[in-house]
C-alpha cells in the first residue's frame, strides 16, 4: 500500500522521482487527458459531476487515484504527496523551491519562470486551456485573491456533520454540509491563493493541483475516521440530485466503463491501496468496559485521537454510557456486533461538557468511539457503562394536534420527537418561534434512516419539511442552525 506523505517531509530523491514521473506523464499525453476531464466537468455547468455537489470528494478521490496509478506505472515508488497549507503557507515555503513545484509567477503575465514546470524547460506547455485562454505557460499569483485556510478553519470544517444536506449542491448550508464547507470554505481558497492557472477550470495544469487535492482528500479521510457510520449522503434517486452525485451513481466520465466507480466504491480509501503518513499504522485497540464497574480513566493523548471501547450486553435493557471529567469529548455508540453500525452520538448531554447516552440495547457487543470535540485538543476523561433506570421517553407530537414545545438549551443539543403517521399521505413538519432551528426527519420505524432535512423553508428562520409518508412511526430531530445557538421553539405536524 502506498503512503501519501506530507510534501515537506519528502527527501530530495522522492521529490525528484515525483517530478520526473509527472513530466513523463505530461510527455505521454496522458496528463493532458486528465486536465481535459477536469475542465469538461466544469463545462457541464449545473450538471458538473465533480464540483458543487456531494460527489466532489469521491470524484476527486477517484481522479487522484487514477493520476497516482498512472505515475506509478512510470515509477512504482511514487505516491502523491500532500500540501498542508495550514503549515506551509508562505511563498518561501519549500514546496515552491526550484527542485519541486517552482515559484510564484513574475512579471505582468505572472509566468512561472522557475522550477521544473517553467515554460522555458520546453517540457511544460499548456495545451488544455479554459475557453478563450491562449496562455501556453503556467501562471501563479500567490495571495492576490485571498488567504490560505487556517488550522482553525479546518477544525471547524471537520466538526460539521452530516456529510451533506439538501439542496445537495453548492448552495448547501456549510453548517450542515461537511462537503460543501470543505469544498467552498477550505478547498476553493487554496486554488484562489495560488492564483493564475490554479484558478481555471483546467487547474490540473498546475501540478500543485494534485498536492492541494491530496490534502483535501486527507481531510475527508480524517473526517471519515472521526465520524464512522456517518454515511455518504444522499442515496441514489434522491430528488434534485445531479446525476453522478448519488451514493451508487456511476461517476462521469468513467460511467461508460464496465465497472464504473461510484461514490460508494471509493468511501474507504484503504481499499484503493493508499494511506496517509499521519494515519495510525495499526487498527486502534479497543478497551473493554464492564457494565456497572467504576469509571475507567483514559485520555485523548494526541490531537485527532479516537479512543474505542467495547462492552457486552447480555440482558436486553436500558443502559447509560457516560464520561466524567473536564474534557469536552464527543461519544458515538455503534453496534450491536458491528463496529460500523452507527446508533447515536452525543456531545454534551452529561454533566458539564461530558457526553451521556441512555439507550435501550439488545444483546450483543457495542462499540463506543470517543474523540475530543476539537480535533486539535487533548485531555483526560473517564468513562463508565451502567444499567439504568428508564430511558427518557421521546416526546410524541400529535398529528394535527397542538405544537410540542422544546428548548435548545446548550450548543449542539439535539432534541428528538416522534409522531405516528396513521395513514399514508402528505405531512408537514414545521417549527415556530424565533429560534433558527434545523430539523431532520427519519423513519419509518428507524430513527437512523434519514428522509429529509430543512433549515429555513418555514416562516422567518423556521424549518418546514413537507413529505409524502407511508404510515408508520417517524422521528424528528431538532437542533439549532448554529453550533453554539440556543433558544425555545415549538414544533407541530399536520397532515
Amino acid at each position, binding site marked *: 500500500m502506498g503512503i501519501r506523505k506530507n510534501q515537506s517531509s519528502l527527501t530530495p530523491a522522492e521529490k525528484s522521482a515525483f517530478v520526473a514521473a509527472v513530466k513523463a506523464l505530461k510527455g505521454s499525453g496522458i496528463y493532458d487527458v486528465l486536465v481535459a476531464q477536469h475542465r469538461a466537468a466544469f463545462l457541464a455547468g449545473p450538471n458538473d459531476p465533480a464540483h458543487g455537489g456531494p460527489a466532489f470528494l469521491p470524484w476527486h478521490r477517484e481522479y487522484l487515484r487514477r493520476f497516482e496509478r498512472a505515475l506509478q506505472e512510470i515509477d512504482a515508488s511514487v505516491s502523491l504527496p500532500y500540501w498542508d497549507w495550514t503549515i506551509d503557507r508562505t511563498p518561501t515555503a519549500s514546496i515552491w523551491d526550484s527542485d519541486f513545484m517552482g515559484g510564484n509567477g513574475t512579471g505582468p503575465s505572472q509566468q512561472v519562470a522557475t522550477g521544473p514546470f517553467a515554460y522555458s524547460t520546453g517540457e511544460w506547455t499548456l495545451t488544455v486551456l479554459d475557453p478563450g485562454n491562449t496562455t501556453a505557460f503556467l501562471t501563479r499569483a500567490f495571495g492576490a485573491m485571498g488567504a490560505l485556510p487556517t488550522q482553525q478553519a479546518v477544525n471547524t470544517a471537520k466538526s460539521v456533520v452530516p456529510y451533506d444536506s439538501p439542496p445537495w*449542491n453548492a448552495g448547501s448550508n456549510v453548517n450542515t454540509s461537511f462537503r460543501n464547507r470543505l469544498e467552498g470554505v477550505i478547498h476553493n481558497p487554496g486554488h484562489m491563493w495560488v492564483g493564475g492557472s490554479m*484558478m481555471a477550470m483546467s487547474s490540473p495544469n498546475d501540478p500543485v493541483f494534485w498536492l492541494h487535492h491530496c490534502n483535501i482528500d486527507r481531510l475527508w479521510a480524517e473526517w471519515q475516521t472521526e465520524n464512522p457510520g456517518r454515511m455518504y449522503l444522499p442515496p441514489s434517486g434522491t430528488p434534485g440530485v445531479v446525476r453522478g452525485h448519488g451514493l451508487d451513481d456511476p461517476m462521469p466520465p468513467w460511467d461508460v466503463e464496465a465497472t464504473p466507480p461510484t461514490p460508494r466504491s471509493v468511501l474507504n480509501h484503504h481499499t484503493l491501496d493508499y494511506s496517509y503518513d499521519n494515519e495510525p499504522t495499526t487498527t486502534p485497540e479497543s478497551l473493554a468496559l464492564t457494565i456497572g464497574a467504576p469509571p475507567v480513566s483514559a485520555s485523548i493523548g494526541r490531537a485527532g485521537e479516537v479512543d474505542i471501547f467495547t462492552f457486552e450486553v447480555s440482558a436486553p435493557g436500558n443502559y447509560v454510557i457516560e464520561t466524567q471529567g473536564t474534557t469536552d469529548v464527543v461519544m458515538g455508540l455503534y453496534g450491536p456486533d458491528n463496529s460500523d453500525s452507527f446508533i447515536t452520538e452525543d456531545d454534551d448531554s452529561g454533566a458539564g461538557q461530558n457526553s451521556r447516552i441512555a439507550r435501550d440495547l439488545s444483546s450483543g457487543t457495542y462499540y463506543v468511539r470517543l474523540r475530543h470535540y476539537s480535533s486539535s485538543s487533548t485531555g483526560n476523561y473517564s468513562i463508565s457503562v451502567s444499567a439504568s433506570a428508564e430511558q427518557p421517553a421521546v416526546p410524541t407530537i400529535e398529528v394535527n394536534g397542538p405544537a410540542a414545545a422544546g428548548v435548545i438549551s446548550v450548543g449542539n443539543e439535539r432534541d428528538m420527537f416522534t409522531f405516528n403517521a396513521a395513514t399514508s399521505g402528505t405531512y408537514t413538519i414545521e417549527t415556530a418561534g424565533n429560534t433558527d432551528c434545523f430539523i431532520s426527519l427519519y423513519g419509518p420505524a428507524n430513527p437512523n434512516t434519514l428522509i429529509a432535512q430543512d433549515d429555513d423553508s418555514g416562516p422567518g428562520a423556521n424549518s418546514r419539511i413537507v413529505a409524502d409518508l407511508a404510515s408508520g412511526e417517524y422521528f424528528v430531530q431538532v437542533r439549532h442552525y448554529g453550533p453554539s445557538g440556543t433558544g425555545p421553539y415549538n414544533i407541530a405536524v399536520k397532515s
Partner: protein
Amino acid sequence: MAEQRENYKGREIILRSGAEARGVARVSGEQGAIADEPELTIDGKQIFIVRNSAGAYIASGFAFDPQQSPVDLAKKIIDYEEAER
C-alpha cells in the same frame, strides 16, 4: 434583449442577455450548458461564463470563486487583474 453597463475601477462591464447575447458568436469547443447564458464583456473582451449547480456564475480562468451575478463575477476578475499587477 437586455443590456446592463457598469464602470468598475475604470473598466467597462457589459452584460447582455436574451436574443442579443444568443446572437453573439460563442467560443468554440466544449460548451456544455452555456446556450442560454448571458454575454459578459470587460472592456469589449468577451468572458466565457457558465452557471454552477447552485445557479452561481463562474468564468473561464475563474472557476473557484462563484458569484451570484455575472457583473459581480466581472468585478472579481477585475480585482484579480488589478491585484496581480
